[in-house]
């Protein structure tokens, strides 16, 4: 079931509104912004998948260090290329919206931080996460010593079953203690 790019049917709109955390205005705005990303010929096809490069031109995602991971997580493409259909795009906005529950946000945050997609955050994932946080330049990156120390501290605090990785439940447990998470895990169009 797809939506042609030119208009969004009323039935689809109410169905989307019931199944996501977005309001009708937000869905319409998302539709508008999504169709701006399509080329002329693509506009007539139903159920378009916009390639990742074009999605990443959106100003809200352009400078985000996690932009590629976000596209990969929400993409339902078989080729794992990070391309998003309109419904994937709505999923993305819904998870990042104001009214999304903590459960949903922490679930998707976990998947975004899981760089190798193995279901847990191990040392490699945590290292990549910290490198994304601290930026590209050399003088902001942590030294290997500091990185090791930091990862050890993180695992010490969050790894309850001491298996060397942080799984989803442990991640959600850690997140539940931080009240800033919900307000920082937000993207608004």
């Amino acid at each position, binding site marked *: 079931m797809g939506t042609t790019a030119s208009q969004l049917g009323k039935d689809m709109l109410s169905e989307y509104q019931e199944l996501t955390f977005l309001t009708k205005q937000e869905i319409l705005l998302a539709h508008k912004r999504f169709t701006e990303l399509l080329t002329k010929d693509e506009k007539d096809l139903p159920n378009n998948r916009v390639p990742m490069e074009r999605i990443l031109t959106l100003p809200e995602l352009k400078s985000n260090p996690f932009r590629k991971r976000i596209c990969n997580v929400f993409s339902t493409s078989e080729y794992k290329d990070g391309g998003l259909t309109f419904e994937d795009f709505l999923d993305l906005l819904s998870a990042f919206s104001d009214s999304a529950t903590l459960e949903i946000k922490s679930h998707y945050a976990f998947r975004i931080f899981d760089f190798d997609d193995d279901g847990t955050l191990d040392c490699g994932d945590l290292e990549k*996460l910290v490198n994304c946080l601290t930026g*590209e330049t050399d003088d902001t990156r942590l030294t290997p010593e500091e990185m090791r120390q*930091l990862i050890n*501290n993180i695992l010490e605090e969050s790894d309850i079953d001491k298996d060397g990785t942080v799984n989803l439940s442990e991640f959600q447990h850690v997140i539940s203690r931080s009240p800033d998470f919900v307000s920082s895990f937000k993207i608004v169009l």
Partner: protein
Amino acid sequence: MAYSVNISQTDSDSESDFEDMGGSKPGQGTFRFIRESAASTQRCPESLQMDDFRGCTGANREDLPFTASGHMRDETLDTGQRKSLQRHHWSAATLKVLSSMPSRTAGINAVIPKYARDSSQQPQTSSHDSSHHSKPIQADFVQEQMEETSAEEKQLVSNLRGLSVSEAMRKLRATPLSLADKMRVRRLAFRDVDESSFISRNIPCYRRLGVYISRTWSQCLFICLSVLTSLQLWHSPMKILSGRFGTGVLSYFLFLRTLLLFNLFLFIINGLFLVFPQAVNPPPHDPHSNNFTGLELLTGTGYLSQSVMFYGFYTNTTLTTCRAANSNATNTADLPICDPHQPHMVPYSIPAAYLFTIAIAFFIICIILVYSMSKSFGRSVQVLKSNRNLAGNIFCIWDFKVSKNTSVRLQSEKISTQLKELMSELTSGEDAKSYTLRLCRLMVHVLAWVTCLISIVLSAMAVHYLSEACITQSPFKDTELVLPAVVSAINLLLPGLFNLCTWVENYDSPSVCVYVSIFRNLMLKVSIIGVLCFRWLGRIAVEPVNHGLQCWENCVGQELYRLLLMDFVFTVLYTFLGEFLWRLFFKQVLKRNRKPVFDIARNVLELIYGQTLTWLGVLFAPLLPAVQILKLFVLFYMKKSSVLLNCQASRQPWRASQMTTLFVFLLFFPSYLGAAVSVIYTIWTIKPSTECGPFRNLTTMFHSGKLWVQQLESSNTLLFWLSKAYDFLVENPLFLFLVNGFFLIVIYVHSQVVDGQRTIVNRLQKQIENEGKDKKFLITNLQALYERSSLVSPNR
């Protein structure tokens, strides 16, 4: 990709792994393991497939890595444990089984159906392209996963069927599936239910009315909600601000918007019940009112003092459209007699309306403040409890709202600095400062504190003497604007001095610095408002005749009006001149491109100060909230443009939720409570002026409420019983003691419950740790056993 990397790592690391067990040759042809072990996993999914493992030779048969008893040393076990379950130390097959453990596939399972369905047609045998681990290596493996996940889906569908429609929708919305999957699940779950209840329009006749009513109701609700959300005032400016500055600066503007809504509420209530009735029936106009000049808007005297703005306008009459048959009061002599068979307006007593409107408005604000305070306190109190929530901070530290490139870079730098400081603090521990250095720092702190306290005391005394001088001089004509100007100037300049002191003191931790500066600013404002309250309630109100005042409430209202406006004028001047000039100074003189930082704490405290003045003044000038609304409106746009032009984001991290809790708390505790206490004191004890206002000729303002209740009692028996009940309950101390005792018991029970839950949490954590140890023990021993058995029979 990641998977293949790990495979090659497994190659080299498996060497070290087996060295522990007695040396070996590294494995060859790891790719083959995966295919074959996948196939064999399908046959017996529970077991570790070590049959085809050819990497290990010469394993020490007697050496099992862990024995159940005795050999474990608990102190080093934790790090050792953790290391040995990390990926590189296991064989490929073990890794694969480990990664399909339920605890690791909890999140991804939901998405598998689509991949499984799509890729089951194309069995992938190359193992170098799998960023998603469940990318099937064998179709059979996929099949097995698919069966598991479709079972989960069936479970979800049956769960949803058991709930009501709205509940099911809410639950489905909160499930982390993709939208396409959710739509499929919804169709499956509600296939049996009449689908017309969702979207179609064919409704049987007998249900039409009910459906019509519910539909109009939901449409009304939707319209109200959309109006409210479009009243999401300033949505796009706030988005721009948060995109550039992040959550910290945004919290100031959110606070501003909250205050605006409070004032709007006050204004609407006052307007409906107080201003409008009196404005429609104005009192006789005083011919002494002057011509309207512009200055009166600033000073509140002259024309404005006769207007609906101030207390003096209100009369102590009762508004009626007809008079009772047996009344012979002169002021209603010209009204027609009430006809009981015709509708007439209920007599509307202005004094009672004045008193009760203000009281009820304050009460509702109190409830709203306490509710929001408890909510935000509940959210952030966990942070206060744990000593350091490093992991949580790392995961939450990235603000996804920030979108501008320079701000993103700034945020990364900020995070990097914070992490480096944290790491250096952890590795080196507390700097062993020499005694002289510590003594020096202590002296500096003491000096700074003494300076600040002295400056606060001096400014309070200055305001006091100025106010005394104003009082003893000729009444209140020429020197009206001096006192507000001095107060606003003090409020503007002294925080600069405090900032200088904190800069000199050079606190280690930025959050301590913020708290200290908030505390100092708060002291200053509290002392100034305290002095002013003394002036109004302790001097002017008590002996108004001595100061030549006929209507002291008007005077107080005008002073508050002037203070509010002066504060606004000075803020405008500071924002435009101060921040603008500061930026020019930095650029031209110091030749640095560093813009000043937006001082969130100071600005929020100024907002709280303005709100305190409004709350203090609403009793004497019912339209003061309107002035505050206008002021806040203009302030928003001014501050927004100033921030965007002149300021840059702070380099210090700003704990938004903690700070928001603190600000709401400050709004409640010194600000609202102080205003409420002084209003109650005024109503209860101070004698209103005899010549103006709705409470003239009464001993206290509260007295009018009592009189009104007595009046109603004589005409209505229900109220008679109500007032008797009130006398019995509220003014009886025993009842209050009982209510207090009850609440104390409830609090005690809750605290005991929290303690019990904390103990349970500790026990569960220990249990999970032990389960982890068990899991590791079993996996390691099983692997060792299979290695041994594969060595015994290498050709299978």
